[in-house]
């Protein structure tokens, strides 16, 4: 049996959960290694060796060390193409091109405003930081425009890249989960008919439910 791959970082991190969702979709065994961010572990020299920007996640398997969640997802999807969900990263160049297009749209258009809202509305209060109402308003306006495009697209296509659930949809799970479950901005998704239908489908997948369970599990006790 293959050695489990290693993922460094807390599952509550959106980027970490993106990688976990992908590993679960591909039936890849993994070991989740805690990084205590409250103690600044991610900024210490030992960690910076594997992730020079001091962010989570980072990833290791027997042959390679990687970071950037979407790069890790692409690597895992390619390396384990023949197991788990085989349609996750497309089975031909045309499918892949469409997946890459929507994965880039997620990274460039969806992620900035949705990440900002997740930080302002879900994390800042926990961290006792002051919320920036200007950022919240601007981010909500930007995100609404993006979701209008998604609403149109998802009226023409079951999932973003086509008829199958792919990495492009998966990449949206982490931020949306926070917005829908712990903020009042969830309506932005659920009130749009096609986006709401799509959110139900993708968040209802077994792999994502397992990630949500991992996020709810109590953090490991520090050594």
């Amino acid at each position: 049996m293959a050695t489990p791959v290693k993922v460094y970082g807390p599952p509550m991190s959106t980027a970490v959960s993106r990688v976990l969702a992908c590993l679960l979709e591909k039936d890849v065994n993994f070991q989740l290694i805690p990084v205590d961010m409250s103690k600044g572990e991610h900024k210490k020299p030992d960690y910076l060796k594997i992730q020079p920007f001091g962010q989570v996640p980072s990833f290791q398997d027997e042959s390679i060390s990687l970071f950037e969640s979407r790069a890790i997802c692409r690597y895992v999807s390619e390396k384990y193409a023949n197991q788990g969900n085989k349609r996750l990263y497309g089975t031909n160049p045309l499918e892949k091109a469409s997946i890459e297009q929507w994965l880039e749209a997620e990274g460039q258009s969806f992620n900035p405003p949705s990440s900002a809202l997740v930080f302002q509305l879900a994390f800042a209060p926990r961290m006792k930081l002051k919320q920036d109402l200007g950022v919240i308003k601007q981010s909500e306006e930007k995100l609404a425009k993006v979701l209008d495009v998604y609403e149109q697209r998802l009226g023409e296509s079951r999932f973003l890249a086509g008829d199958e659930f792919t990495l492009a949809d998966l990449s949206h799970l982490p931020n949306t989960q926070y917005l829908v479950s712990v903020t009042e901005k969830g309506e932005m998704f659920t009130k749009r008919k096609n986006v709401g239908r799509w959110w139900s489908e993708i968040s209802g997948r077994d792999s994502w439910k397992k990630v949500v369970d991992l996020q709810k599990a109590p953090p490991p006790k520090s050594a």
Partner: protein
Amino acid sequence: MALDENVLEKGILNVTPSLQTVNTQAPQPSFLHSHTLKISLFVSLLPNPAVMAVLKVHGSPFSTATMRVVSALYEKGLQFEFVSIDMKVGQHKSEAFLALNPFGQVPAFEDGDLKLFESRAITQYIAHEYASNGTQLICPDSKKMAIMSVWMEVEAHQYDPHAAKLCFELCIKPMLGLTTDPAAVEDLEAKLGKVLDVYEARLTQSKYLGGDCLGLADLHHLPTLHYLLGSSAKKLFDSRPHVSAWVADITARPAWAKVIAMQKS
């Protein structure tokens, strides 16, 4: 708009009064009106244009995202048609353009029936689909490609957010008659500086950002680099020796010179 001798030598200038994509077959030399006609530039890079599916880029030669795609096409030595999108009159928000990119942003790309948007998805498609043409921009080895993919994400998520905003403050605002915000510039330069510190360390161990060979991870930086090098932010690159050498190397590439030349025609 003046006729550029270089353009006539190199290829065929098609002129059309409509917004539709251009018939790229026989040349139709004719009179030229300045702003009312949409000009489609058919760039022939081969002495004998071969029969291929028509590659089209819809965009602006000044848009960083458009330049990113065009640089990949030039590196690959691929023929393509450039359809100019006039953003000053909101052409990128027209129904015809939204059918190509529902986000209303340039560029949009066509390869026969395939339509794509998002510059970094387009360059990846070009690099894979035309792997045997021109410069190799991806790695056939899967581990090396994974490493390059990491640094492509770094460009997109660590470098570009600050670089693009800095471009806006230092280069775009003056063009639009707006005032640069010095506090914003200071903040962005500090943030970009931290990213470039990581690049400096990386480039002491690796000739190019993505690995030993030049690839998309390096190329994707060129458009914002080009603007920042013409601004006070140049010092951020000059002050880091390995970054500086890398910048000098990639900006000197002949294919990149062709991208810049499009801004002058």
